[in-house]
């Protein structure tokens, strides 16, 4: 995709803006991103994986992991997760990075033990070694299911680079989660 600003270079940065609920998404080349002040983010990414994490411009770097308290900014800075739960917290944001590192985003190898409380995705068989995700529709969906479903759709949207839809899904999830904690 070409940069939407100069229409000359290949776009490699996504700028998502949310102003009073009005979301705009722009795909920019490095040069134009720098002109818009995004270039300064470069100094934050000190890790070896910094180039890989460039996609994270536009996501919320202050989001925290419930278990270890690591923020998404910590993840991008060090290139490393704080605890296993970080992957649950930052799953959608991580998908583009995983795509870059591995060329794939779904596990197809040995099936480990899925714990009850950790197993939020409800697939028909635990040992099924399929990479693609199918949200459950077998029982009456709870709010958790709905959030999980939205998260799965968000993940897909991010992989498909449909950021406009992704941003909307993300807000929807946030609203549901907020409502939940009240």
């Amino acid at each position: 995709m070409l940069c939407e600003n100069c229409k000359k270079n290949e776009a490699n940065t996504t700028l998502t803006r949310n102003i009073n609920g009005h979301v705009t998404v722009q795909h920019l080349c490095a040069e134009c991103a720098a002109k818009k002040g995004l270039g300064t983010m470069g100094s934050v990414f000190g890790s070896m994986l910094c180039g890989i994490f460039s996609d994270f411009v536009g996501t919320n770097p202050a989001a925290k992991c419930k278990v270890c308290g690591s923020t998404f900014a910590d993840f991008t800075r060090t290139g490393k997760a704080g605890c296993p739960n970080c992957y649950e917290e930052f799953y959608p944001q991580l998908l583009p990075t995983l795509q870059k590192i591995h060329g794939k985003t779904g596990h197809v190898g040995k099936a480990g033990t899925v714990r009850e409380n950790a197993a939020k995705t409800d697939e028909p068989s635990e040992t099924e070694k399929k990479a693609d995700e199918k949200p459950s529709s077998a029982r009456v969906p709870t709010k958790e299911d709905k959030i999980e479903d939205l998260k799965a759709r968000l993940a897909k949207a991010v992989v498909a680079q449909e950021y406009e839809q992704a941003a909307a899904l993300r807000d929807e999830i946030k609203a549901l989660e907020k409502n939940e904690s009240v």
Partner: protein
Amino acid sequence: MKEKWYNEAGANEPVVISTRIRLARNLCDIPFPQLLDVKHKTEAAEKVIAGFKGAFGERAEEFDIIDMGKLNGEAAFSLAERRLVSPEFAEAGAGGFLILSKDHSISIMINEEDHVRIQALASGLQLENAYAIADEIDDMLDKQLGFAYDKRLGYLTECPTNLGTGLRASVMLHLPAMLAFGTVGRLAETVSRLGFTVRGAYGEGSDIKGGFFQISNQITLGISEKNAIDNLSTVVRQIIATEEEERKRLIVQPEVLDKIWRSLGILRTARMLSGDEAIEMASYLRLGVACSVYKGEKIDLGAPGKLIALTGPATLAAKSGKKLTVAERDSLRAETVRNIMNEKQT
């Protein structure tokens, strides 16, 4: 006591020296080691060790459990020199624990980058066998510890580069001919496109010593263990074929033949040997044995690997029990090498 795997006489492959399988695993609900202080690392390690003892029962006797914080530097780095632990793990010290089988073929690092790193090591090209061993240990420990796993992302690891299978399969290769003819550079380029990486086993970049290389897989997500291993195996077999072809051209060169014979003489008789020289001589020795240059001599193909494994600076210092000067170390190295060379060869 069981013989160490790297001292085995059975290392009979001309090009492949050894195989290593590593599985990265983590405990649930505990931050990764980098976020833990020594106290919390130790608590996590106690959990893993208890799980290990529960899983292995009487077989746990076949292992040593080593508190890395209690080892001195020489002993710790001696483990790294023999590739039983990573140099980073040796460096970190307190909070790290090692479960090491008496024959050194199984090494479980606790609180390296991940909570648990299961390693199975073997001589020659034994990817399937080594994986089967690591896989079995993984199953046994998982029953006790319930490793962090997600259906979408597989085994959860500190670094996203290990997500999925958490598998790193490595093969140590001896490629003196490909190094001499400059084929190695092209090889590194080609295999990197296939998701593998090649690097010097001793020395990096332009300073590769002895033509020893390590090739390993990089991709862990979206590929099964079997496919990752099969792919590596295929690539390694192609490298073996290339190296063997190029050796035919190499060992007819008078200079090379001279070096092969001289190396034998030096290793058998030298009174002082530097680390670099030992690796270089071991490389020529291995080439000579593999290409049947030494007519009338009985030298085991495992000898060169053994003399490298046992003559690293930390290993020598640990053996002598004191800090050594460079001269003392070089003379102890020469003595160790002579002893290995003069052992009854099979």
